[in-house]
């Protein structure tokens, strides 16, 4: 194996004039390729540059999602409706779960719909790198777009499923009774950022180890139980509520019920704990993802 390296012909080594025209052509991009940075950061300008691709990736998954299904997008309504029905029968009728002042069906639907979003977002984002393997190994773009697009896609299902909740609210006459309803998107945002944080972490993990797809279903079966989907969290002992607040989804569901169903306001101390956990997860996920990003194409 030869280690000799002949320099390129000397005429090309002469200090070349700087590309004086570059600034005259604003569309002309200069890219500097360097070894991976030790300090991962998120290049917002670059993300903005790739906004159309993000949109296109979201669009692709939305369009493909219900292709070749008989009922099509109806599934987005059916899945939460059926899950709510099962919960109402099993936990509401037979087990008599505590539900405070709110009728059990609305209470459950208000929990099931955000939880359904979270489950889809988490599953999709944690496998986003692997399921887009040809893109990762063949084309450059900020890889963050993949988990990001994956948590946006299920929002479409979320909004399509909302009428289920609206119907139940109409039937039981539970309407939002305060300006709290304006905070509903904030609690949804908490679910999105939690899903993205964990998704970033797990997709990095999945790029190397294919264990995650087995862990997620187990995790998602336990999660509704500890998030208060089928019961009202304020019905359990306070010391347990503090432990449950480590799970951001408990704050999402409690806050969502407060905003939409006019339930009692969530405990702000515990909500702060949940939001902090979500922010930590997001920061950790982003740092880990960005650290391993340069190696994805080599190890995936």
């Amino acid at each position, binding site marked *: 194996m030869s280690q000799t390296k002949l320099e390129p012909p000397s005429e*090309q080594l002469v200090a070349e004039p700087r590309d004086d025209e570059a600034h005259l052509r604003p569309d002309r991009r200069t890219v*500097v390729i360097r070894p991976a940075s030790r300090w991962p950061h998120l290049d917002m300008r670059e993300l903005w540059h790739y906004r159309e691709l993000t949109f296109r990736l979201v669009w692709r998954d939305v369009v493909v999602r219900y292709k070749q299904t008989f009922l099509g997008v109806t599934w987005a309504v059916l899945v939460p409706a059926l899950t709510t029905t099962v919960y109402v029968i099993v936990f509401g009728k037979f087990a008599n779960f505590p539900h405070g002042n709110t009728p059990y069906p609305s209470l459950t639907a208000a929990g099931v719909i955000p939880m359904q979003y979270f489950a889809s977002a988490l599953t999709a984002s944690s496998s986003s790198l692997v399921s887009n393997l040809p893109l990762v190994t063949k084309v450059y773009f900020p890889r963050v777009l993949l988990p990001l697009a994956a948590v946006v896609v299920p929002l479409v299902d979320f909004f399509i499923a909302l009428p289920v909740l609206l119907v139940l609210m109409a039937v039981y006459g539970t309407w939002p009774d305060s300006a709290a309803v304006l905070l509903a998107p904030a609690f949804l945002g908490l679910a999105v950022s939690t899903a993205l944080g964990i998704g970033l972490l797990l997709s990095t993990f999945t790029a190397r180890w294919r264990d995650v797809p087995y862990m997620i279903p187990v995790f998602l079966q336990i999660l509704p139980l500890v998030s208060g989907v089928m019961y009202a969290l304020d019905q359990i002992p306070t010391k347990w509520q503090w432990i449950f607040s480590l799970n951001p989804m408990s704050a999402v569901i409690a806050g969502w019920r407060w905003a939409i169903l006019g339930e009692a306001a969530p405990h702000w101390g515990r909500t702060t704990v949940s939001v902090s956990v979500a922010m930590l997860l997001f920061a950790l996920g982003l740092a880990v993802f960005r650290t391993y990003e340069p190696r994805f194409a080599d190890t995936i």
Partner: protein
Amino acid sequence: MSLAIEAHDLSKRYRIGQMQAAYGTLRDSLTRVAARLTGREETHERQEIWALRDVSFRVREGEVLGVIGRNGAGKSTLLKILTRITTPTSGRAVIRGRVGSLLEVGTGFNPELTGRENVFLNGSILGMKRREIQRKLSDIVEFSGIEKFIDTPVKRYSSGMYVRLAFSVAAHLEPEILLVDEVLAVGDAEFQQRCLGRMEDFSGTGRTVLFVSHNMQTINQLCDRVIWLDGGTIVEDGDPSDVVTQYLQGSHSSGSHISWPDDESAPGDDLARLLSVRAIDEDGHTIDTIDVRDTVGIETRYRVLREGPAVFAKIRVRDRRSDIAFNAMDIAPHALDSSAPGIYAATAWIPGNLLSEGTTTADVAICTLRSPKLHQRAAQYEAVLFTVFDPGDGDSARGRFTGQISGVVRPLLEWSVERVD
């Protein structure tokens, strides 16, 4: 004149394990960590290779630069770095202008989406803006020649239609710098011809092209300058005909014959070691080129170091694109008994009219068999390289046809033709 690409001391290191174990389970990794902690890790797992080592070059705007070299010389790694799919381990490169590459034809195509939808998706992935795609849509569809099926899901397309549409999108990207890897280009001969045609159009308009190829004729024809990579470093950089000539000479003198001076450096284990490998003609002379109609031998010399299980040679022949044409091993009866220590020369005779034209390589291995497992004692990837040519006298499988013929082998078959009606 301004520069389109500047590469300064680009290096890329891979861990061998990283390349081999494409992915593993967590348990595999934990086992490896445990092995490392207890010091039982096998050394080869920690081996590193430099796919590129201190590669520097500059490409002027409008220049067509060819990159040549044997398989594993670092050509693909270089392209991967320049397209930013992977990052260099050290060094840096500056690229001025929009980069497009023909390595990613059809990347991201979704079978469930229609042709039209895929044009938008693929265009965005290649870096086109929505407006740009809308503007070029009719051109893209027309160029692909599949107007009738543009609203059909691409899963119903034939592979030819699929490639045509995909290529059509890539061809309308209009990058300022085009990166082409002929080796990776998919599709049939006609499609590859189109890639080349598109490249020629491109260089004609004063845009920069970086072209990786094994086809010396094309390189000579299209390129203004050629870089020859070997073992991850630039061996030569200059005028195409000079570099190509040197490359052909260089790879021939060392390509069809490889030997190891001592057992230490030779591939192998405590049972068997490789000594040398040659490509030979029927008279036993080492050859660089062989007539497609003639028999060619792959002679493997090896030393058996001790009494043990039966040892035999195995070859794996690869075509010009490094695709495996076939595997063959010594199946003679002696391969059943134990082998006595000593030096052996095993020659595999490949009959004439079997290999396809072009650069042919052979991997060799010395194996023992414990059925159903084949245990490789010593192995050398692409140990020898030689060129198969067809003079076109009309009595080969080519007949009087002069165009491109695909396929990893090109056997001369017996045809029985009779008039049945």
